[in-house]
């Protein structure tokens, strides 16, 4: 499933809204025919009610994969290119490189001068961006349907002809931009360094998810022009990419255009990506502290869990919802609503291609002790492990999740992303019904079981504390669980 919080990837540019008429481009629910069946105590909803995304998929001789989906409801089209490379493919000493490279892809190519990429697209009424995750890098445009050839021409040029005009000034410029992106998202943000601190503690050093997508300042400084050239030659070949095109177009015309623009880009060497990761073992609870410029401490509990689409992935998603992501969820209701000792609480299961983690985050209210909050967190998790969850809790979580599912289907860009996502992770672009079925199948007993299996294990506990207040951290001595 595509979840907004799953792609914790780093995108390329901030959005622009020039006036109040440039309304929020919000995802919307589509064709909720399954929801129509909802009554007071409806059984899990039938997967057959979810609309399919009819598609055509084919490959050019050079290995480029193409997925087409027609939707003529609005005269716009989305072009979404995935390269199968992400921060998990980076080499030691070059963290953040996949994302830096993504930025460089907007700096022009042999037939597109610097700056022209955005100018031409904007003059055609298009919006564009890109993003990088641990596993993949995407580049997309949404355009009025007449401008589709422009997007294909630009994307083909940077796929086939990036290096002839590549030079160090381009790399240096985007290096500075990305360092500012890191400052804006991480270093100048309260609690901003929590995530990378946890990753480094949870995963062994050689594990590809042990460093953040944005990378470190030192590694960003070290990236060279040669690195850019090698990375392009290794990963940015047509045989390592998939283009999804969704929206208002004529398939015969588009196929000719794709052939014309991309057909003669030579196939690159076979791409060998890692298929396994070092084992993650956390023998006992590990307590960490990070000082930051914050008013309030915050506690992060992180367990090693499972990768995307693993058998327990969906149940863990629903567990997160039942535990913390709803006003009636266990921890929100107890800590924020009833006791009012916490300001906020959240949880998520984040499964990527090769591995995954589950996290609960709690921010106490001023004057509250993290140890007292911790007791409630432990009790509620123990309660689910011991006594399970109610049918109503499960059903509510499933319904919320399914709404989110269909949000993604509301726009042509959302559909292009979905097609690419399923194609990449499960090899079938139109997997949406089967994916919904994963969530429908989860039982209350499954929730109890995954809580026991994953949240019963030792974990990483990070407390971010105000500078100079290390004594505020949660420790096992403060009664924080330890081995159980």
């Amino acid at each position: 499933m595509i979840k907004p919080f799953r792609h914790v990837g780093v995108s390329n540019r901030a959005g622009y809204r020039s006036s109040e008429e440039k309304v929020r481009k919000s995802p919307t629910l589509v064709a909720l025919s399954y929801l129509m069946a909802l009554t007071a105590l409806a059984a899990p909803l039938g997967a057959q009610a979810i609309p399919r995304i009819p598609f055509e998929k084919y490959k050019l001789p050079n290995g480029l994969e193409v997925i087409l989906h027609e939707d003529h409801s609005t005269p716009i089209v989305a072009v979404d290119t995935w390269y199968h490379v992400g921060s998990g493919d980076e080499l030691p000493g070059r963290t953040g490189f996949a994302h830096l490279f993504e930025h460089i892809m907007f700096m022009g190519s042999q037939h597109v001068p610097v700056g022209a990429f955005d100018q031409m697209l904007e003059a055609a009424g298009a919006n564009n961006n890109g993003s990088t995750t641990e596993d993949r890098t995407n580049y997309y445009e949404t355009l009025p349907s007449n401008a589709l050839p422009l997007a294909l021409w630009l994307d083909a040029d940077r796929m086939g002809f990036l290096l002839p005009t590549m030079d160090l000034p381009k790399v240096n410029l985007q290096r500075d931009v990305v360092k500012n992106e890191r400052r804006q998202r991480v270093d100048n943000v309260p609690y901003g360094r929590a995530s990378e601190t946890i990753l480094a503690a949870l995963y062994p050093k050689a594990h590809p998810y042990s460093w953040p997508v944005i990378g470190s300042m030192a590694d960003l400084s070290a990236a060279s022009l040669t690195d850019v050239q090698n990375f392009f030659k290794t990963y940015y070949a047509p045989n390592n990419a998939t283009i999804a095109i969704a929206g208002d177009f004529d398939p015969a015309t588009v196929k000719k255009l794709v052939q014309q623009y991309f057909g003669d880009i030579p196939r690159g060497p076979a791409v060998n990506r890692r298929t396994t990761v070092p084992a993650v073992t956390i023998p006992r609870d590990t307590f960490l502290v990070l000082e930051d410029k914050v008013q309030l401490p915050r506690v992060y509990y992180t367990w090693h869990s499972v990768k995307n689409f693993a058998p327990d992935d969906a149940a863990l998603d629903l567990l997160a919802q039942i535990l913390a992501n709803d006003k009636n969820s266990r921890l929100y209701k107890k800590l924020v609503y009833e006791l009012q000792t916490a300001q906020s609480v959240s949880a998520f299961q984040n499964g990527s291609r090769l591995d995954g983690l589950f996290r609960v985050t709690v921010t106490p209210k001023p004057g509250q002790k993290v140890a007292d909050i911790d007791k409630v967190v432990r009790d509620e998790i123990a309660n689910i492990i011991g006594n399970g969850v109610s049918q109503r809790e499960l059903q509510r979580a499933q319904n919320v999740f399914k709404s989110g599912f269909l949000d993604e289907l509301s726009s042509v860009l959302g559909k292009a992303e979905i097609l690419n996502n399923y194609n990449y992770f499960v090899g079938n672009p139109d997997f949406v019904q089967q994916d919904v079925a994963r969530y429908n199948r989860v039982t209350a007993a499954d929730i109890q079981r995954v809580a026991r299996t994953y949240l019963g294990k030792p974990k990483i506990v990070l407390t971010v504390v105000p500078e100079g207040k290390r004594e505020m951290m949660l420790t096992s001595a403060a009664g924080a669980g330890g081995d159980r």
Partner: protein
Amino acid sequence: MKHSMVVAIAALPLIALPLLAQGTFDRSKPPELGAPPRVSLPPINTRELPNGLKLMIVEQHELPLADFTLVIGSGGTADPGGKSGVANLTAQMLREGTTSRKSLDIADQSSFLGISLFPQASWESTTLSLHTPTAQLDSALALFADVALHPSFPANEFDRIKKNRLTELLQLRDQGPAIANTAFPAILYGAGHPYGVPLIGTEASVTSLSAADLQSYYQANFKPNNATLIIVGDVNPAQIEQKINSLFGTWQRGNVAPLTYAEPPKASGTTIYLIDKPGAAQSSFRIGSVGVPRSTKDYFALTVMNTILGGSFSSRLNQNLREARGYTYGAASRFDMRRAAGPFTASAEIVSAKSDSALIEFLKELNNIRQTIPADELSRAKRYLQLQLPENFETTRDIAAALVPVALYNLPLDYYNTYVQNVEAVTKADVNRVAQQYINPSSLAIVIVGDRKTIEQALKSTNVGPITIRDISGQPIQ
């Protein structure tokens, strides 16, 4: 020249289909594009119930979905003096209990139905938005109407919401950009003008509020004759009017006091207001002045001008500060147009070490935009505004959001159908005139939140203006 909805764009030759090469083709030439698609925005049906509630109904039968947005014509500007945050908290409290539903029940039903029910107060309006499958229409609308018409403002729930808000205000101190966003309008408008006071309130105002304050704000402003209900989706106008009438028909009409706005203080000279955020990795820049109301006759000229200055990725501010110099992840500018003149703001998060250089570049761009705009830059901005319009009408939720300003500012019902021609009519002279009139580099408030120790001296040596040190609320340091 008169233009229809779709404007012929001179710079891109119009042909019926993209040229497909026979054999070889010249990769160095961008493809020639066909005519932009003709966009016809669906008609808006208007109705008015006997109690004065206006309806704007747009049929969109593509999917069995509907969006309902109740727009109340009062927001933060209607907060009583000294009680900033009332409109915002009133909106938040709508979901915290009604005469027949408790807070947790409302949340449970929303989640269980898989609908979204979202209240929000802005400066001039309060909106309550429902997104629902039409098969759920009756139960969803019943919940929507109950929350809109029968909120009970329970004291215990407000006590919790209030503590939560006070903690939020405390946490804002951690965030340089948030401090800048609060201080900039406070400095521009002063505490005597509603735009100078935070929508979410201050520690002092929130502490002083009681549930009764919200109740009386609700009683004074939530009147059918002060509201429009926007309905978009798979509905039949006559039938939906009946349903709405049965749910909202008993809502009692009442007088809503007209708002008066103090004149914002006149700016004199350009001043740098420096707010210390020790150790900040970036400096948060907010530069600008009092701008224009939404009713300005210069709306389209300003929109085009701002698109060139800082309203798009290839705008001048972003090209200079990000793409040429790498000082920031992004720079932008905007005119917030409200009932009265909202702020014009140019902004960016700048790496601390380049604070002085960035300030110089900001000023350079604010001066240069007052010079004549090259023709290609002007036409690029106009085409961007014109041609991306369809994207704003892709979903029922998009359309409902697009109609809010139409309802709030009494824009003509064909506003979006004439948008393209109104943009097209903007001339180089218009852009030049509004830039000169509304962007005055010698009279700017420049708010910078950053590490004073390392940036003050450098900012001083730019000689852009005198430096005044302010606290995190934008107030002079005692």
